[in-house]
């Protein structure tokens, strides 16, 4: 084989390989959060007695957590995670989109607006970015148990057994992340990382880049 041929046979595939690697490095693969399913629609009452609905959450990114009034130790770690996400959400660029936290109590009997106000104070929920809510028991069953798929059941002593879970919902009312209680040290990190990915999708929601983001959903490049 002549030297010239050898250059062609090795040189061209080699050059293509180098170009491919460079392209991969430059156009990083897009990461998107899955669009899991629709978040439930709801109408509840917040700690100030005001109405709070799923329509209020439209156009905002919402982190949902679930608890009951006197849950004490059961809720400490999950409340801490939510607090940490609230404190660190400033690290993330969400464009013009607001971020809010809604904590839903499935114990409306004890969680009157007055009780919710006291809980909000101890949690540091300001009633604006972080609201506590509860409502009609049968509606709560549809919203929390069927809609958010967070299981809970009242025990004989009046306390509740439940699966501590956090749910991330986008501005279209689509569930983008479900975080079952694991080791909560890493949960806040994970949620912040996911908010960052969501922020990137929001900032690229128009123009040519949006096609790439929509396409990414079909290829399931989920983190």
């Amino acid at each position, binding site marked *: 084989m002549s030297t010239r041929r050898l250059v062609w046979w090795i040189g061209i595939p080699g050059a293509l390989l180098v170009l491919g690697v460079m392209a991969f490095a430059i156009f990083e693969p897009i990461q998107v959060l899955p*669009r899991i399913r*629709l978040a439930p629609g709801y109408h509840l009452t917040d700690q100030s007695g005001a109405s709070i609905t799923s329509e209020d959450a439209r156009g905002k990114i919402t982190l949902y957590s679930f608890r009951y009034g006197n849950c004490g130790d059961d809720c400490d770690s999950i409340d801490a995670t939510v607090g940490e996400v609230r404190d660190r959400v400033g690290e993330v660029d969400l464009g013009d989109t607001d971020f809010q936290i809604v904590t839903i109590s499935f114990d409306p009997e004890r969680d009157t607006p007055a009780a919710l106000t006291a809980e909000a104070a101890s949690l540091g929920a300001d009633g604006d970015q972080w609201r506590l809510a509860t409502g009609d028991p049968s509606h709560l069953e*549809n*919203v929390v148990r069927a809609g958010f798929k967070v299981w809970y059941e009242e025990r004989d002593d009046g306390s509740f057994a439940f699966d501590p879970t956090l749910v991330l919902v986008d501005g279209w009312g689509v569930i983008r992340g479900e975080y079952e209680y694991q080791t909560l040290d890493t949960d806040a990190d994970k949620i912040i990382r996911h908010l960052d990915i969501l922020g990137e999708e929001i900032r690229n929601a128009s123009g040519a880049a949006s096609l790439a983001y*929509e396409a990414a959903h079909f290829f399931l490049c989920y983190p």
Partner: protein
Amino acid sequence: MTRTTKIILSTVAGVVVLGLIAWFFVLPRFQPHVFHGRVIQSNQTAPSLELQSADGTVRLSDFEGEVVVLYFGYTFCPDVCPITLAKLDRAMEIIGDDAEDVNVIMVSVDPQRDTPEMLKEYVEHFNPDFIGVTGDPETIDRVATMYGVYYEAEEGTEATGYLVNHTATVMVIDRDGYLKLVLPFEGTAEEVASDIEYFLG
């Protein structure tokens, strides 16, 4: 003309023709469809639904293999519902014959007042093929909640009676029973039609 020139010219002509064919006939097939609402790629099928129409029980599973367009409204609805149903009727007209495989269903968010008969009369006023369904208040609350629909009665005037605030999105369920698309209230009949056509394939 030398032989080389001939070869070069015919090669150039060939490339141009192939290029034109690719540009006008092949590339458009690879253009992604741009949706006018939010696409959901869920691995869970749409929440089940079993409600009453004037012609009997309606289940989501009745429409297996066909596209379902779901809307939540009520017959006393002053503005949003008539606009949406008229838009959906226009979209069916644009889709044409293929609209046979599309089932437009309006679920009542006012089960206290809406009867299956009232719903039938109401939706058929917009399109004789549209289906209106309702159920007992507990079932309606469950179905609406599961489909991400908020609704709440609110005081109206003496003439209108109470009004019901509700989420005004239109949902598209594909032939395999997956909820694929949420369309906002805004948007034209043409946009709705082109998105539904995508799911008709």
